[in-house]
């Protein structure tokens, strides 16, 4: 829509003040013809920092699907607009040139890394987990001279990632316990 000067004065809702100025003969052309700049649009969305148990809130600015800004959420009663140096770095979870984007595999004894696909990796990881669990699974254990059911394996440990959110941590721990893991740890504790 191309706006005329008069059209702008009405459409902008700049209101009767600017319209009155025009009637008084003040130069208001700048209001309509001002700078013709390229305009960009971004959205802001809130998120919770995953790095520790404080639970600070942040605002993430996104443009064309990419994170372009990060700041503390001033409305949060927890951090009141501030973020610690680690919290400020959650920007790098999304934007990071060092982040691996392919599966990398180094065979036992090998010195070189190779690229693999998810189709290769997921069955191989599942196989290793299953074989390790089956080989080391304890259904029962003697306690005070009696055999009691324990259904566990001590051959696998699980470490949750710091960038996981609450729901992902829940799913991971549920999955690990269903396999019988007892060594379950997480860095964030949120």
């Amino acid at each position, binding site marked *: 829509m191309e*706006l005329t000067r008069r059209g702008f004065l009405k459409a*902008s*809702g700049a209101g009767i*003040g600017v319209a009155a100025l025009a*009637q008084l003969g003040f*130069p208001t052309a700048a209001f309509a013809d001002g700078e013709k700049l390229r305009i960009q649009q971004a959205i802001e969305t809130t998120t919770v920092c995953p790095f520790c148990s404080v639970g600070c809130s942040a605002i993430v600015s996104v443009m064309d699907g990419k994170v372009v800004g990060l700041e503390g959420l*001033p*409305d949060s009663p927890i951090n009141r607009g501030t973020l610690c140096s680690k919290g400020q770095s959650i920007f790098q979870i999304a934007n990071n040139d060092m982040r691996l984007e392919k599966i990398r595999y180094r065979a036992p004894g090998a010195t070189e890394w190779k690229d693999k696909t998810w189709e290769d990796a997921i069955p191989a990881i599942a196989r290793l987990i299953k074989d390790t669990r089956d080989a080391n699974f304890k259904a029962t254990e003697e306690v005070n001279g009696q055999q009691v059911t324990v259904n566990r394996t001590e051959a696998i440990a699980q470490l949750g990632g710091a960038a996981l959110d609450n729901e992902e941590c829940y799913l991971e721990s549920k999955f690990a316990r269903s396999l019988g893991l007892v060594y379950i740890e997480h860095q964030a504790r949120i």
Partner: protein
Amino acid sequence: MKQRKINKAIIGRRAKEYLESNRGLKGVLKLYRDVFSIQKKIGQKIPDQLPHLKGGEISFRIEEGRRLIEPDELEVNTAVLREMMKELGEVLKGEDSKPLEKLEDILADDEEVRRLTEAFLEERDGDDTHGMAESGIEPEILYMLMHIAIAPFFWKQASTLSKKADLGQVPQGTCPVCGELPIMGFLREEDGLRILECSLCGTRWGIPRMMCPFCRTTDQKKLSYIFAEGDQSRRAYLCEACKRYIKIRTGGGQGIEEMVLPLEDLATVHLDNAAAERGYERGCRTVFS
């Protein structure tokens, strides 16, 4: 909440900066400086007064969403107002004195000045000017003149009230002190709090960051902002729910007390144009309305 502290020197400095980016604003920026000088000079003659509300009443009204200065609670000294209108009228005449030639007749009649004051105070809520229609001056021009002439009375009364009120987070798009629409807002540099400034009494108050100040939606899918490429410090926040927008300035190194938002508003007209082209209406007033 720190309130604004602006003076002629600060306005002069800022106006010079804005002029460098848009020479077309010269006339309007000069007008604002002249208007401000008169408001400050004659505003000194407004008698000091005790606040009409006590601390508890102030908190109560804010909690209830009621403004602190109702139309019948503003104390306007007619003699000072008449002097203000006279001098501002001279400035507004500019190149063409014809639209304001009836002003002298109005100023000669105290009763008419009082009638217009009451009409202004009642009608500013309704966004129409029919009470101004019988004065012989175009209602739009007279409304603007009344707005800038009465503003210093609001400044005076608002400054005593805002010192006693907690205006850190008042989730509304109209001024908690006088009920007027904001001129625009800014993000406080130290914590990103969004602060709006009233277009009439100059009071600043904080509102939640992720909320449209006009329809109060907090649906983040309906909120976005636009900016000129390369300058994220000046933004227009758009609301898809009510199709209105508000311009926001980020710190940009300027001390917030010295931020002159009326000038910033005039200098960011490219954002008004861009928002209007996208079908959004301005939710704020200007310093002249």
